[in-house]
């Protein structure tokens, strides 16, 4: 491989100070260091040896943890298409349709955000960092397969610009970048991301009888309005299987990568085992959602009494939904595993992480159930907690300061 390295090195003077393309030095450098770990050695003063890890490897670990969700997601796009149109198709065909629809979204997401990132590196004269390696793939995974590509480009560029670069770039952002992209689309173009018709790709084919474009979350709100238990209602209404096992495996409509709790669980195990994500956030998030779901059950009212026409009796079906459903519907699993654990926007102290994760779980369920205007709560819950994370840390660190101060008087 030495000859390739020599070849690249030969081009270097062109990009260095005084060279024709000196402005593009960091673009060149990003390419070179992508291919080759540079021959940089430790300084004369300071540690003489360094750990084998670097940011590229850490980011790549997240991408690898995402692979099960990506592959499943691609297949599920095709699968949803075929059950919606009633056509029979092989596994390969279903995967191919998913690839056809999703690949352009992935490419556009990387290209648009990457361009903004590179432009900032050039203007600000700093190296291009690896953060976008993960963000670029997270954005497509939280969007529906039917999203117009120009919206993907706009969202990706917007998120990198407003969520990251204006705060000073990688490591300085307050909000999770990929979620900012989704939130941008959610509020700017709600029809394309929160409507009933967007989750399943139909193409030119006509849908089957009883086709509903809504996701489980949309249907759950509808069940509540009609006063029918959620699982029964979805089971009767949806043209896709909605038993807990199917929900867990993820053969349901939704954003490209978020439907399968199983694949997210595999990703979570990879991230926890490699310690790239903090288990505290994931565990406390799950517990928070379960606890809040169980608490809401208490206030659900009495379905029997309503049926029997008891005066003043009320029944709230969504509140009555078993709390474990919250873990396997919508984007909760994906969000808590891959978004909430982003170390830059999460709480940074260990105690803070417990609180941060638990509140994400709690907020997600509250937003989902008690605020029917926003069927999906995880996105807003994480963004809200991103904003509150520094506050949580502030109190945790303050406790440490007080502990130190107390020692002084002893």
């Amino acid at each position, binding site marked *: 491989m030495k000859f390739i390295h020599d070849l690249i090195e030969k081009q270097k003077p062109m990009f260095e100070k005084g060279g024709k393309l000196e402005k593009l030095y960091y673009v060149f450098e990003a390419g070179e260091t992508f291919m080759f770990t540079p021959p940089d*050695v430790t300084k004369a*003063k300071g540690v003489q040896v*360094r*750990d084998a*890890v670097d940011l590229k490897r850490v980011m790549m670990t997240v991408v690898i943890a995402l692979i099960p969700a990506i592959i499943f997601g691609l297949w599920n796009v095709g699968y949803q298409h075929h059950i919606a149109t009633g056509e029979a198709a092989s596994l390969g065909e279903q995967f191919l349709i998913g690839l056809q629809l999703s690949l352009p979204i992935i490419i556009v997401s990387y290209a648009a955000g990457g361009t903004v990132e590179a432009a900032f590196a050039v203007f600000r004269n700093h190296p291009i960092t690896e953060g976008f390696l993960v963000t670029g793939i997270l954005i497509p995974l939280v969007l529906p397969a039917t999203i117009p590509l120009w919206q993907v480009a706009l969202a990706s560029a917007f998120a990198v610009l407003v969520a990251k670069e204006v705060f000073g770039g*990688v490591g300085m952002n307050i909000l999770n970048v990929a979620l900012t992209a989704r939130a941008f689309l959610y509020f700017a173009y709600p029809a394309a991301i929160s409507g009933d018709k967007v989750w399943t790709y139909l193409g030119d084919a006509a849908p089957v009888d009883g086709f509903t474009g809504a996701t489980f979350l949309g249907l759950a709100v509808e069940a509540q309005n009609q006063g029918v238990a959620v699982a029964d209602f979805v089971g009767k209404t949806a043209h896709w299987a909605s038993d807990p096992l199917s929900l867990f495996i993820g053969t349901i409509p939704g954003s490209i990568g978020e439907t399968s709790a199983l694949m997210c669980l595999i990703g979570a195990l990879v991230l926890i085992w490699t310690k790239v994500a903090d288990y505290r956030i994931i565990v406390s998030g799950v517990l928070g959602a379960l606890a809040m779901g169980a608490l809401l059950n208490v206030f659900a009212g009495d379905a029997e009494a309503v049926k029997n026409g008891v005066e003043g009796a009320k029944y709230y079906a969504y509140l009555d939904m078993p709390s474990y459903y919250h873990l396997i519907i919508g984007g909760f699993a994906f969000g808590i595993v891959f978004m909430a654990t982003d170390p830059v926007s999460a709480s940074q102290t*260990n105690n803070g992480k417990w609180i941060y994760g638990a509140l994400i779980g709690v907020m997600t369920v509250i937003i989902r159930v008690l605020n029917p205007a926003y069927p999906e709560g995880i996105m807003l819950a994480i963004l809200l907690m991103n904003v509150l994370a520094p506050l949580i840390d502030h109190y945790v660190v303050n406790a440490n300061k007080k*502990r130190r101060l107390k*020692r002084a008087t002893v």
Partner: protein
Amino acid sequence: MSNNVKLKKGFDIKLVGEAAESIAKNIDTPTTFAIKPEDFPGMIRPKAVVKVGEKVKAGDPILIDGKLEEVKYTSPVSGEIVEIQRGERRKLLAVVVKADAQVEYKEFPVKPIDQVSKEEAQAILLESGVWPQLVRRPYAIVANPSDSPRAVFVSAFDSHPLAPNFEFTLKGQESYIQAGIDVLKKFTPKVYLGLNGSKSSALFDGLAGVEKNKFSGPHPAGNVGVQIHHTAPVTSGNDVVWTISPEGLAQVGKLFKEGKYDAKRIIAVAGPKVDTPEYVETYAGVNLETISAAKIKGDNVRVISGNVLTGYAVGKKGFLGYYSNMVTALEEGNKARFFLSDGWLAPITSRLSFHKAFGLLGSTSKKYALDTNTNGQDRPFAVTGSFEKVVPMDIYPMYLLKAILAYDYENMEALGIYEVAEEDLALCEFIDVSKHDIQKIVRQGLDTMRLD
């Protein structure tokens, strides 16, 4: 009553090339020795007090700090001043002595230690050049003669990678160490000794007049800063304690028992690029040329005065630092690595990692022949929660470092700047995904607090 503190946090970097417990023979006698201002981070205005050509004895002053003139930095050997090295803007780099064949010692008064007053002891320590062995916390700089320290702390073991074993290097010097303790008791009511909790010690177990505590666990359990934190922590800028190494204690004892500044030192010469790693008997500040010639293999090699975490590169012909108790030799990692074969995307087992990110398959319990490659480039802080795992103190390293970078005095103070020295956060620098110069940041913080 002694405590046994079991520390869980930390990390042992295991390297190949541990020094065998023997003294190397057939090494040509080194001819030059030097004292270098860079070994004393608190030194503000270093000044050579000798001229080239002057003759000195071991213990004659050759260097002082213009801001703290009482403390003399003296020649480790007798001989002739041959060079005063200066760098940019005439910055003093080293005062070099060419040694005589037989060392002649300057004589200092000898009296039974119990009859020596504190003032006499202080004068002798300052004049002889042994004083700089006393390091002051907070700030980890040479002690100020006007300090009255609350306590003196000594760590009886060095837990750094490949560090020398004091049981070997100080064998038979119990009486000097005891004398050193007795002298220091004139300056402070308490001397704390931090023993290795996982072994008993022939050298230290019998010492009297000290409070002994045991510490066990991975590095930095042997760091005196960590031991202070768990014994009687430094709580403010005015809460002064001193620290001294066991070698320093022996030197103090010898000074008062025999009336001479004996800079003799048994150092470990270790690391993957050392041919039959073992110990070498020499003096502080030795030029490493002859040791390198006899012991170090290859040309693309980094020669370090000290260990791989807190030492510094000096080159094959550089001088050993004042506080260094070992020389480490590593291969320079100046080779580019293709990302799929042995770079950032390849599974590798030949490089040590504290982390478990994708492809880092090397076990942390095996011994490595690490090189000096940085394995990545400088990046903004992005990963959180790992520094805490290698700092066995109730401190948030990341918050402290950010307070230092922001010159936030109040927070530096509240977050524990007074309790740390560079060495205490050196492991953070090793494991840092973002490859920051953390020890440099710590020193910047200490300087900011000290000089404001």
